[in-house]
């Protein structure tokens, strides 16, 4: 049993890595997407809207299976064409890119809203001081935007964390996969082992979401420095 529990712990580490890397990719895609949607270029704005509308209208599980199997198919066709042996896509890389791509659409909306919430005067003042575009972004817009974006980011993070559970469906060895392996390998009287290992997996998730709640609470306080706490 302790061997299985160790595998579950190893699985939750994979979950944390998967979620953190996906968050990073989604955040960067979100910044790019928001820049596209807010850009004066009509085509860029349209591409940004298409990205957020399509991705947010389709379930993440469906997108995940669609992208995973389609890309694997393309890779197979390519290796066949070149006469190379078959390459299997690594489930971790697949999971990170698919989750990052999907939640990038949600981040685009979060960041777009946050950027629009920064008073225009701030940007005009930056221009008046002669700051370059990069300086305006990194010193004026980004720090202020983060205050408005944090509640959305924290929400998206919790969703990504829970969405990682789906990646076991494409055979990534994360917590749920470990729990299912443990269930297959054991047999307790009364059939209790199924409930036990799944509950342990659930409790590990619960611990993760609880810790992240505290971390985001701290971050929100930090980025709100200099502002009165809003009344609840």
């Amino acid at each position: 049993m302790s061997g299985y529990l160790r595998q579950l712990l190893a699985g939750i580490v994979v979950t944390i890595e998967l979620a953190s890397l996906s968050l990073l990719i989604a955040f960067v895609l979100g910044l790019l997407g928001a820049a596209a949607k807010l850009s004066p270029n009509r085509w860029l704005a349209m591409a940004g809207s298409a990205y957020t509308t399509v991705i947010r209208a389709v379930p993440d599980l469906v997108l995940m299976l669609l992208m995973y199997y389609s890309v694997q198919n393309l890779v197979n066709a390519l290796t066949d064409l070149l006469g190379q042996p078959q390459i299997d896509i690594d489930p971790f890389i697949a999971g990170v890119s698919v989750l990052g791509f999907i939640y990038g659409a949600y981040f685009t909306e979060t960041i777009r809203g946050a950027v629009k919430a920064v008073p225009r005067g701030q940007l005009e003042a930056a221009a008046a001081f002669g700051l370059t575009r990069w300086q305006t972004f990194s010193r004026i817009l980004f720090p202020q935007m983060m205050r408005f974006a944090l509640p959305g980011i924290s929400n998206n993070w919790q969703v990504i964390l829970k969405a990682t559970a789906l990646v076991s469906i494409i055979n990534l060895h994360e917590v749920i996969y470990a729990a299912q392996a443990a269930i297959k390998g054991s047999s307790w009287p009364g059939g209790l082992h199924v409930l036990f290992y799944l509950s342990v997996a659930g409790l590990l998730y619960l611990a993760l979401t609880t810790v992240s709640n505290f971390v985001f609470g701290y971050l929100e306080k930090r980025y709100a420095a200099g502002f009165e706490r809003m009344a609840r």
Partner: protein
Amino acid sequence: MIDLIKQYWQPYLWGSPPNHISGLAMTLWLTVASCVMGFAFALPLSVARAAGPSWLRWPIWVFTFVFRGTPLYIQLLIIYSAIYGLDFVRNTPGLGAFFKDALNCTILAFTVNTCAYTTELLTGAVKATPRGEVEAARSLGLAGASLYLRIILPSALRRALPAYSNEVILMLHATSLAATATVPDLLKVARDAYADYYLPFPAFGIAAILYACLSMTFIWLFRKAEQKWLRHLPTT
């Protein structure tokens, strides 16, 4: 690809033997059944959590905390495989028959999950009722149940409508998990089509388009609902 569409358009859209329920109809049924039941349970729970005695408040808090803090996929696995895996459940006639059926298990899991999110969302809306509204109602002699039924709940439900429309869309998307429990919803049909023809793009692409159409329909319905019930608010 043409063959795939020829053979599978009925299972996707209109239903075909042996179950005569299409993937689309099953997805819609899962969404509507779990949302309606989840909402019905969430309404009293949220009032109890916002204004009930503390021995009622904290168990409801624990319930929403646990079900919002864990993935729905684990909840579904626990209800679908762990509970039926227990010997005493399998040997109790009524329980065994209920948990043996995949559809019962998925609807139960989805209902409990959306109930937790909806409870939290409605609690926020009830707590955000302006003091003046409650004071005005009290000064007119309303109290207890009629205060809630006539003043607080109509006002809170209106306030919760935009957030609730989000929850329904998320639930629609979450129903795709039913395919992992062998319930013949849209994604299950897509996976069967994929297994038959080994063409992932059309198989899952058709499902994706149908899910997108369902999402747009729900969004449109909720926009109509907001225009009707939130007409007093300034349009943004």
